């Protein structure tokens, strides 16, 4: 799924699962007044564009979707198969906590 949006309100209407994801990442309109968001949630690497409303300056962030990173098996058995840690990525609101930023 690919979306390109400008403003969180639009996201909420058009793609509720992505809005949840943004909200979970603690970025809200009072942090960034304007945002373009491009995401393919089936792709581990997604992009976000932040823009300073007082200028035309913008910056792009390339993120990692930690949801689709394979889990390392406990007990030294190596790396498990590339199974999502919370189900099918990008398909439902259950994905909203996939991104945890420090």
């Amino acid at each position, binding site marked *: 799924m690919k979306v390109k949006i400008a403003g969180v309100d639009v996201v909420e209407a058009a793609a509720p699962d992505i809005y949840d994801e943004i909200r979970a990442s603690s970025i809200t309109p009072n942090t960034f007044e304007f945002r373009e968001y491009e995401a393919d949630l089936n792709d581990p690497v997604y992009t976000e564009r932040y823009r300073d409303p007082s200028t035309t300056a913008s910056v792009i962030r*390339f*993120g990692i979707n930690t949801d689709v990173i394979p889990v390392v098996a406990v007990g030294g058995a190596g790396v498990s198969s590339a199974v999502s840690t919370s189900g099918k990525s990008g398909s439902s609101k259950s994905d909203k906590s996939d991104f945890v930023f*420090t």
Partner: protein
Amino acid sequence: MVPHLYEEMRAIDTALEHLVASGSKTVIVDILARDKGTLKILPSGKYESHSVLLYKDPAVSDVYIIDPNNSKYSWHIANSEVQLLVRAKGFARIVAYDKILQIYTPAEDTGPAPGQYRDCIDISVKLAFGFNLSSKSVDIGNLAIHPVVVAISNNETIDMAYAGNVLPVRAKQSSHFGAVSAFKAIEDLVSKKMTIIEKIASHADIRIGFYDEVLDASKDLTNTSHPLASLESIKLSKNSALARYQTISGELGAAKVEHTAILSVADDAGCISQFEAFDLRLTGMIESLFDVMDS
């Protein structure tokens, strides 16, 4: 290489590609958070990610990795296979600040509310805005004194005018870099004036001088060249000055409380006008203190 590290490499590779294709100075990229070399896994089972800034000056062939929180969190990137990716894109190498530099430390939980600290993405974006607008190139060896870093940092060893990391003071990292610069300028002025007031107000000559002069005059009571009226005049004058000094001391205490109060809600450009009014009052206090010294 295990697949999860491949995803980190892939994100960095994509970010480098963006630098080449766009000619931008900055791009933000997620890396996987580590603790003593091991990937950090949260209680939820998710890997923790961390956003850092890549900076490329057109006049320099290196790419700099700038960590918004602690330089050591991303040192490993400059000592990894990422160097191969960098060279493959035509850059010389990727370089990190080689000492510990903590640009921004959240003292409590992060979030978007006025009373919360900002997260790593937020600080990275604001650094990127600042660097993109700044005419001063980043010299990675002198990162700690770059004006953008100084203005945004909540580390009082980087921004000497900062009152200390006890409040979020989000105005320092506004989306409008113009507001960040204005806030920094007014904070520098306020800080300088507070220091002047404290120095003058604590000066021994002022605190004790009034009493000493009156005491010396009292010892000369037998001296006919000091008529009693003259002595009374000195005493009244010094008592008056002392009273004014004590009033200003009280005002200084109130000013410190007010300074903290303004900082506690400093989450947007609106606080600048509050600071300007506050700064005017400090100027008045300094003038009053000089009057006391002259009297």
